[in-house]
């Protein structure tokens, strides 16, 4: 799956409608539309955006690197969340490569019947992506220094 583009399903329930790692811009409204469903009473979406500051330092440029297995791991993560919660539909996308300030690195959208489940499932999805996805973030600061985030 890592090399064959987005994994899109159109099954009847608990659908994972997208689980992709992409070098393209992620459009949050498109992700939300993907999970729309007449049965859904609640859609919660998360957009993790690249910030101009990190720990008080000004960020000039930012790059994400993904392991070749990243998209397969993302599909597993999506499946785990779909199994843990009453999900009607789910879509998740992680961007890699250089990302301009203000643009999204990660977008997740979850549709459920009731709102509590949508918040819980979307937050658990984002947490699990952060924990499991083999992706790395490289920041170059305005003073020219750089760092690999989470690497002491």
């Amino acid at each position, binding site marked *: 799956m890592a090399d064959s583009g987005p994994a899109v399903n159109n099954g009847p329930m608990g659908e994972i409608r997208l689980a992709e790692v992409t070098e393209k811009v992620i459009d949050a409204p498109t992700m939300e539309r993907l999970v729309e469903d007449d049965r859904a009473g609640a859609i919660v979406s998360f957009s993790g955006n690249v910030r101009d500051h990190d720990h008080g330092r000004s960020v000039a440029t930012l790059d994400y690197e993904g392991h070749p297995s990243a998209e397969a791991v993302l599909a597993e993560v999506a499946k785990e969340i779909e199994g843990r919660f009453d999900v009607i539909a789910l879509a998740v996308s992680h961007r890699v490569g250089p990302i301009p300030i203000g643009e999204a*690195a*990660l977008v997740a959208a979850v549709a459920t019947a009731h709102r509590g489940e949508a918040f819980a499932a979307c937050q658990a999805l984002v947490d699990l992506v952060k924990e499991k996805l083999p992706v790395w973030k490289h920041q170059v600061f305005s003073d020219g220094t750089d760092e690999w985030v989470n690497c002491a």
Partner: protein
Amino acid sequence: MHLFAAARAAVGEPMVTVEAGTLGSVLDSVASRYSDFARVRPQCSYLLDEVSCTDPSTPVGDGSRVDVLPPFAGG
């Protein structure tokens, strides 16, 4: 051995070839050749032929692939 992100930056190469042995011995061998790798090494996790591997005594055969993964920072 395939190196990613901070591990690749420490070694300066995305891939290095190391003699077969154990996970521990191949990592020792890289650390002895690239001094900066020692700093990153304790934080990394490893894939041996695409499967997670934590025990340094695990045998690494000829032709095996070891992936060195620094701490993830997605999202």
